[in-house]
């Protein structure tokens, strides 16, 4: 490859550093939620290695490699960040920290936040000190998010927030919330929304977990009863929160869509799993020919999708991007991931049905069930197709 000398040097240093600093335990595949480091005030590390790995990476700013150093980031260029990601994949290092702050709020604050808001919140996200949740959906506002009704009324230096959110992932474990509220009840629906940040320990905030088909309860109903939020916690202008909300969603969608993208390199591919599960026939092919065909089709599409992620990034870097592709990545990536999980279940046959037991039995079935949400969370597949039809294809409104 035509890597510059500087980048090659960065690669060598990074490789050596990762080898020396990534604990062995943190090179094992992530098998369930407890393997993920979410950070936050009340986070309980599942092992000393998980804690050490976070601390070491945070010290280098590599939990958020491309954020500016001033806000706890690594200050890396896109090329360097890509090298870091490749080198981490090479040793199968787990992400040191996963969080809504990194994926969603951070990018939105970097673009729309005030200097004080950036200085206050970004370093805490980078170090995993504060865990955020997303207060968007409401019982009456899912796909039609802009019809949300949670209200915020300004009284002196505070907004008084009242209303209810739903499907708030990890609301019961999060420290702070970024929340869409209606500040201008009489304005057209997209123009009356504001983007607020507040502490989940504020008086008047309460949560009630919802149990999912996977058996776990990662999300909640969240209630606000006269919650007082300092005016300074408004991001951007009053009534202009929809733009920020949408910008944040593009990041969320790319993140969710990217979950299938490790297919080509590094990740333990579906074909590998299939080989282990089925063995090979005398002709060197998987013995179950219909299942083999499904695996091949899946691998072709996964690979094509991974190359598309690569191309979209390269085009953006070269200034040739066609813009709003996040809906495409979200739609296609999540549909692919669901298909992959269906195949993973098929490959394991009845063993895939196990629910509880030793040695993490049930992980696969839970992961399969969890994957069904991919095409719902962050805006459903149907909504993404609507957006593509409107913005990319310029088809007339329904």
């Amino acid at each position, binding site marked *: 490859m035509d890597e510059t000398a500087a980048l090659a040097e960065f690669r060598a240093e990074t490789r050596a550093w990762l080898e020396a600093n990534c604990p062995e335990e943190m090179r094992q595949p992530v098998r369930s939620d407890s393997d993920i480091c979410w950070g936050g005030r009340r986070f309980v590390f599942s092992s000393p290695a998980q804690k050490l790995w976070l601390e070491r990476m945070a010290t280098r700013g590599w939990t958020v490699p491309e954020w500016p150093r001033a806000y706890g980031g690594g200050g890396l260029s896109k090329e360097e960040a890509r090298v870091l990601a490749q080198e981490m994949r090479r040793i199968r290092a787990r992400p040191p920290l996963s969080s809504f702050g990194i994926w969603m709020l951070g990018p939105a604050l970097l673009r729309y936040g005030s200097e004080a808001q950036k200085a206050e919140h970004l370093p805490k996200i980078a170090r995993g000190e504060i865990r955020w949740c997303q207060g968007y959906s409401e019982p009456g506002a899912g796909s039609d998010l802009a019809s949300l009704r949670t209200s915020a009324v300004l009284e002196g230096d505070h907004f008084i927030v009242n209303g209810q959110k739903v499907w708030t992932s990890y609301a019961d474990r999060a420290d702070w919330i970024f929340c869409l509220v209606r500040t201008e009840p009489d304005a057209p629906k997209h123009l009356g929304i504001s983007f607020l940040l507040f502490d989940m320990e504020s008086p008047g905030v309460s949560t009630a977990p919802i149990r999912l088909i996977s058996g776990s309860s990662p999300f909640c109903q969240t209630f606000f009863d006269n919650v007082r939020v300092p005016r300074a916690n408004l991001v951007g202008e009053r009534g202009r929160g929809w733009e920020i909300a949408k910008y944040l969603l593009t990041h969320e969608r790319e993140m969710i869509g990217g979950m299938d993208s490790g297919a080509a390199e590094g990740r333990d591919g579906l074909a590998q799993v299939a080989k282990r599960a089925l063995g090979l026939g005398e002709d060197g092919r998987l013995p179950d020919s219909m299942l083999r065909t499904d695996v091949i089709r899946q691998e072709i599409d996964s690979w*094509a999708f991974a190359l598309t992620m690569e191309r979209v990034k390269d085009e953006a870097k070269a200034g040739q991007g066609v813009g709003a592709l996040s809906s495409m990545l979200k739609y296609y990536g999540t549909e692919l991931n669901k298909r992959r999980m269906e195949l993973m279940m098929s490959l394991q046959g009845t063993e895939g049905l196990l629910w509880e037991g030793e040695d993490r039995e049930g992980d696969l079935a839970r992961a399969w069930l969890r994957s069904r949400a991919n095409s719902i969370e962050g805006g459903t597949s149907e909504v993404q197709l609507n957006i593509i039809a409107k913005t990319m294809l310029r*088809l007339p409104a*329904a």
Partner: protein
Amino acid sequence: MALVLTDDERMIRDSAEGFFAEHAPVAELRRLRDSRDPHGFDRALWARMAEMGFAGVAIPEAHGGAGLGMVAAGLIQEAIGRNLSLTPFLSTSILSATLLAKGGTAEQKAALLPRIAAAEIVVALAADEAPRHAPAHIGTRAHASGNGFRLTGTKPFVLDGHVADRLIVAARTSGADSEPAGITLFLVDPKAEGVRVERRSLVDSRNAARVTLEGVQVDGADVLGAVGEGFALLEAALDAGRACLAAEMLGVADRSFALTTEYLRTREQFGRPIGSFQALQHRAAHLFCELELAKSVTLKALRALDEGDSRSAIFASLAKAKVGEVARLATNEAVQMHGGIGMTDDADIGFYMKRARAAAETFGDSAFHGDRIACLMRY
């Protein structure tokens, strides 16, 4: 290298698109078909393609070509797909030129490559024998005779066979009928004794012929590459052809999609544009995503060939498999969304569906290439 076109490549793409849109648009395909043109393509266009540097785009500069490689060739073939232009570009400038450049002796290269770059000759590849692509399946035999060989066998589907000035024939000098080892490539003059060439008419109005060889005498100097070791050379050329066919199908799919979304915006039923119906919007939006994937695999396959990537065979198959499916979906949806108009010969859209089908069948469809990918990755 980044998965993005360079400025130079973008210029090639634009000039190719402009060229074929002007000189060989769909109307020209219609004219050649309706007049039952005996050549099935326009030699004047072929000559112009030499002036543009297209005919020799992938031929090294030392042999009179432009030496621009496969990405450039793919961009030309994509424009050919977009305009459904009839040219011998694939058979001559890609397949034959690759075989000669990679396997030819100095004399063979000097004799043929500059003439291809100048569009003076058409050279066709006579390899496949089975209706479903099986490149190692060669039953045509080459028996040693005098200082050369005698060839006997039938090639039922030779692209541009009836207009070819020279044939490259794959024949078996040893081994069983479907073994990769024992295949040898020969340069054959179609006017030689014992060669019979019959044009066959195809659904997509492209040129193909059945070539029958009955004891055709060739001499040792006509062997292309090493005796018995032609398969690797053949596969290298086929991979170039497959990647370029993927590019062509991308052009076919992309244009038929553009025609369709335009139709969705303008055709009205129930008092509104049919493009406002969500059932159609979602299918169109899905297709948009599939086309994005098609673009990525095509560029990757072409780049991998230029870079000598050790996985270039896999990427060629990936592109041929994926884009074949996308082009089928795009053109089938196009006909459906045009309603009755889509079924008429007057509308261009049917031509796109015909070409997508033919291009997908040529040198391996998705089933063939899916299996090939899996075998190359050992599952």
